């Protein structure tokens, strides 16, 4: 049995604004063991980033509010920790890589200073020692250590993302949350950065939550996958189970919309409709307005999580036996 690192139970995060309550995350459960990689997949607005910020306890407040749930990390509930303790965890035990490397580095500090900053905050080293370690971290991500005196604008996008990865891994965290780390990069650089993250993750034995909307990226890097829709995890399983045997109509739709290399198709086959407005989620199953298999009951009854065995969980009335497929 692997050691459990992160156990999120019933996490609910809403943004309370003048125009209504944005139900960004609605009671999700996530489990992650040490060294494992979870792919969190979903469309824009599915609540992936909010989940990540929730784990870091960085949901902007106001308007964001963590309404309920537990985030157990190494046995402590992060939601109950005082802010000062939480600061000691951020960047040290849990790190985050943001989507856009162009804006997640401070433009007026050299990359060496920014790397040294996180090392100094958590390891209490002297300036010189921190800079030395910063150089080593840069070398580790494939940037010459001598470039530690350069400013972020002197690096290309891919190199900036490497710097960001170096910052995130500088204190050897237990958990790395990568929020669409490759979305802002072009495809060849994406592959490089993913390889780098995969290699370093194995080297440091770091668990990772990889947020993405690219199933290809998931297939390459992850051990487990959770599919998010409208703030809920609709299906979660091991990588093989999910790719070989997807169950939820939404997951099926996602796979259906990927064009097949071998067949000539005139048009792509998307999931019809759009993501529901998170201030006004549909009744019953949030996916029912777009679901090809939806029946009347789906409009009324909220599906529960059904365990199909081997850790494969799905939230759909079909698998509760209430609706015929």
């Amino acid at each position: 049995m692997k050691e459990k690192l992160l156990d999120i139970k019933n996490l609910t995060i809403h943004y309370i604004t003048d125009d209504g309550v944005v139900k960004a995350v609605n009671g999700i459960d996530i489990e992650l063991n040490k060294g494992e990689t979870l792919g969190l997949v979903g469309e824009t607005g599915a609540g992936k980033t909010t989940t990540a910020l929730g784990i870091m306890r960085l949901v902007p407040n106001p308007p964001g509010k963590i309404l309920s749930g537990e985030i157990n990390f190494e046995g402590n509930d992060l939601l109950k920790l005082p802010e000062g303790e939480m600061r000691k965890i951020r960047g040290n035990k849990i790190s985050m890589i943001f989507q856009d490397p162009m804006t997640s580095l401070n433009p007026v500090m050299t990359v060496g200073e920014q790397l040294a900053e996180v090392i100094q905050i958590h390891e209490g080293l002297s300036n010189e020692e921190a800079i030395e370690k910063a150089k080593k971290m840069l070398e580790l991500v494939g940037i010459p250590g001598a470039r530690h005196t350069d400013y972020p604008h002197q690096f290309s996008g891919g190199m900036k993302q490497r710097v960001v990865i170096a910052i995130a891994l500088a204190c050897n965290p237990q958990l790395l949350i990568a929020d669409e780390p490759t979305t802002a990069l072009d495809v060849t650089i994406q592959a490089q950065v993913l390889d780098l993250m995969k290699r370093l993750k194995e080297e440091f034995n770091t668990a990772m939550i990889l947020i993405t909307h690219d199933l290809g990226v998931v297939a390459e890097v992850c051990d487990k996958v959770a599919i998010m829709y409208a703030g809920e995890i609709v299906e979660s399983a091991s990588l093989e189970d999910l790719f070989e045997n997807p169950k939820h109509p939404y997951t099926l739709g996602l796979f259906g919309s990927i064009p097949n290399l071998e067949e000539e198709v005139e048009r792509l086959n998307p999931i019809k409709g759009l993501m529901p407005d998170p201030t006004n989620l549909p009744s019953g199953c949030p996916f029912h307005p777009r679901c090809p298999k939806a029946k009347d009951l789906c409009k009324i009854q909220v599906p529960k999580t059904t365990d199909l065995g081997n850790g494969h969980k799905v939230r759909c009335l079909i698998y509760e036996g209430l609706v015929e497929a």
Partner: protein
Amino acid sequence: MAKNKMAMAGLGILLILILLAIFADVIAPYEEVAIKQNLAMRLKGPSAEHWLGTDEFGRDIFARIIHGARVSLKVGIVAVGISILIGGSLGAVAAYYGGKVDNFIMRFMDILLAVPSILLAIAIVSALGSSLFNLMLAIGIASVPSYARIVIASVLSIKDQEFIEAARAIGANDFIIITRHIIPNALAPVIVQGTLGVAGAILSTAGLSFIGLGIQPPAPEWGSMLAGGRAYLRDAWHVTTFPGLVIMITILALNLLGDGLRDALDPKLKQ
């Protein structure tokens, strides 16, 4: 910045002025030359003895200009210091806390902005009485709103940027975020405005002295020298021309320096 010739020229002129001001007593003793009247030597043009001529009381204009530099530069720098300190902290507080605090502070600033700054300075000096400190205070307060506006704008744009969130995500506390991430990013426009503001403050001092609310005679000050020589413009052009030129050159130098600083503080223009 060393590559920017204009900015270096500005800096050079300023350094010369500052040195002249510091060694003013050595070059031309205050009591004997700068304020001692000599009616026999009234309104004499430039000569070997009096490089820039003499004024309406026979005092050496060069000596009065370098002694006046002490006052003008001090007023300029201290007044700008006062406005950056007050305006900057008010602006930062407003931007940081937002909501009602922001509203209260900025509406007050709007009221101050609605009054022309020279009029505000005149009002403050007349209310407090004319002394060097009151003059600096008046000029400083009069330009508080512009610094508050600059700081609030830059802090607002910076505090929501992703690198601030990233700094939070590495466990930085508010102090580190404010001092290492927000202030250095917000500072550039303030420093630039500051150097330009010194020029403005020197002009305001000259203006206030010109109308008799600034430095009191017989102490030399550029603006009051202008005011004093105005009556003799027809016969003795040098009495107003030289102080006027010095004001112009000083302000030009400060503006060049300000432009250079703006470029130097932008890391994107660094080589």
